[in-house]
């Protein structure tokens, strides 16, 4: 019998950061190959160009100033809208969610307003706002709902024993939020953050697509409108790249803020 020096992994062992990144790249590679195969096998390259055609064009775009200007504008619009939504969603969410009668009073109105598509109201909005502002509003409204509902659901997941503890040590309403409900809701907000980062980007682009607001969306629109499909797909590819970068940032933020959370600590701590 050998006295084992080090037992081998016998429960699922989460990957380290390097392995994780390699896996991510592997995933992208697989998707790329899949896409290439499908486009070649099924579609005409004129309609849906294969990656081998898109990638060089994308590389070209990366050297063009107008791409970076457009990306900058889109990111700015997305960021402003997202920040507004985050602040408003959190404030309203905590206000409404931690006062039971307020929640009951507001929920019917919220349910009513939630499905109103801002896109339908653009002709009305254009009376008072310019296109960039409307795009910010579009982003902000959509993200607001997401943040709001995640906060409301997060608040319902707060353990009553923790709340009771906070009450017995007589934390005020604000103290209770800061020390107890906010951290408890944070995991739900982490999910919200990853959702809204992509929603914000997608809607900032949609603003360009349907209203001609300057930025990536407008570039995509005009490529499309000019029959420049390779260019359009190259832009979409790069947009996705921006999305991946933002998601990585969001995941990093989540890992730091939620290091104490079960989900994170299972991944990080257990070695």
């Amino acid at each position: 019998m050998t006295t084992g020096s080090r037992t081998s992994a016998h429960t699922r062992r989460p990957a380290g950061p390097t392995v994780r990144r390699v896996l991510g790249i592997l995933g992208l590679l697989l998707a790329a190959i899949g896409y290439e195969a499908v486009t070649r096998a099924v579609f005409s390259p004129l309609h849906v160009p294969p990656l081998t055609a898109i990638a060089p064009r994308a590389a070209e775009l990366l050297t063009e100033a107008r791409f970076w200007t457009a990306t900058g504008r889109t990111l700015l619009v997305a960021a402003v809208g997202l920040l507004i939504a985050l602040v408003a969603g959190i404030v309203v969410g905590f206000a409404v969610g931690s006062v039971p009668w307020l929640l009951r009073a507001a929920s019917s109105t919220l349910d009513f307003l939630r499905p109103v598509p801002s896109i339908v109201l653009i002709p009305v909005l254009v009376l008072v706002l310019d296109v960039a502002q409307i795009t910010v509003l579009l982003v902000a409204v959509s993200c607001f709902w997401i943040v709001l509902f995640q906060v409301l659901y997060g608040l319902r997941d707060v353990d009553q024993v923790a709340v009771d503890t906070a009450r017995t040590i007589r934390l005020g309403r604000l103290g209770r939020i800061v020390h107890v409900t906010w951290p408890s809701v944070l995991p739900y907000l982490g999910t919200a953050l990853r959702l809204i980062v992509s929603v914000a980007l997608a809607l900032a682009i949609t603003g360009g697509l349907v209203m001609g607001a300057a930025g990536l969306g407008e570039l995509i629109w005009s490529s499309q409108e000019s029959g420049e499909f390779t260019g359009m797909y190259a832009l979409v590819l790069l947009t996705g790249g921006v999305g991946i970068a933002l998601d990585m940032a969001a995941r990093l933020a989540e890992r730091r803020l939620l290091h104490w959370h079960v989900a994170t600590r299972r991944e990080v701590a257990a070695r």
Partner: protein
Amino acid sequence: MSTDDALLRIVDLGKSYRARERTVDALAQVDLTVDDGEFVAVVGPSGCGKTTLLKIIAGLLPATTGDVYLAGRRVTEPPADLGVVFQEYGRSLFAWKTVRQNVELPLRSQGVGRAERRELVAEALDAVGLGQAADAYPWQLSGGMQQRVAISRAIAYRPRLLLMDEPFSAVDAQTRGDLEDLLARLWHRYAMTVLFVTHDIDEAVYLGQRVVVLGASPAGVIAEFPIDLPAERDQLGTRSSARFGELRAQVYAQVRRTPHLEEVAP
């Protein structure tokens, strides 16, 4: 309210939990008075309503009938200067705060200054043997250690009324003895009023000035035993004294009389 010595008056308290599947009358006609500075130990069969009683006293749960008065005021929300050690000690710790931060929190909300706070926390953690673990997070601790964090949080605070729900259930015998003595010392020194739920009858007799026995569900107070042991108690001496044995036997006999597991045969 009369202005006698009573800190806590529980009058005709009743509590029913109603749900679709089952309705439970947890408490019925509980009457209890606790003097200011008194140490009352509460024992009773599992599921009789001890936790329920404590939560109502703490103002965390509305009673179905009856009232609780603390210092003459009806309790409708958690009163000031209250310390609670919950039976679910694990869930009462904040996973996002370190042990130190957990213990510090009530002090912060009381506005205790930084330096004093640090000292109080260090003292309270040392007292429960967790000086080394101050920077750990609760989920990095063993069950017993978590429970000690909860105790430490409650005592760092030096509350006027301390409610403890089986606070030593997860620690070993030796530590338990040490913590009992710690609690007794603190109670003496800071003139706290303590309501202490335990399953250990020895412990109840060892610590309490009075032992209150709750009956089976719906629980009411079925017996009270004043404990006339000398104020200064110590683990070896007190526990081996004849009077301790007598009292212990009395309480035990009373507890035995209440119905428990109806049939214990697989």
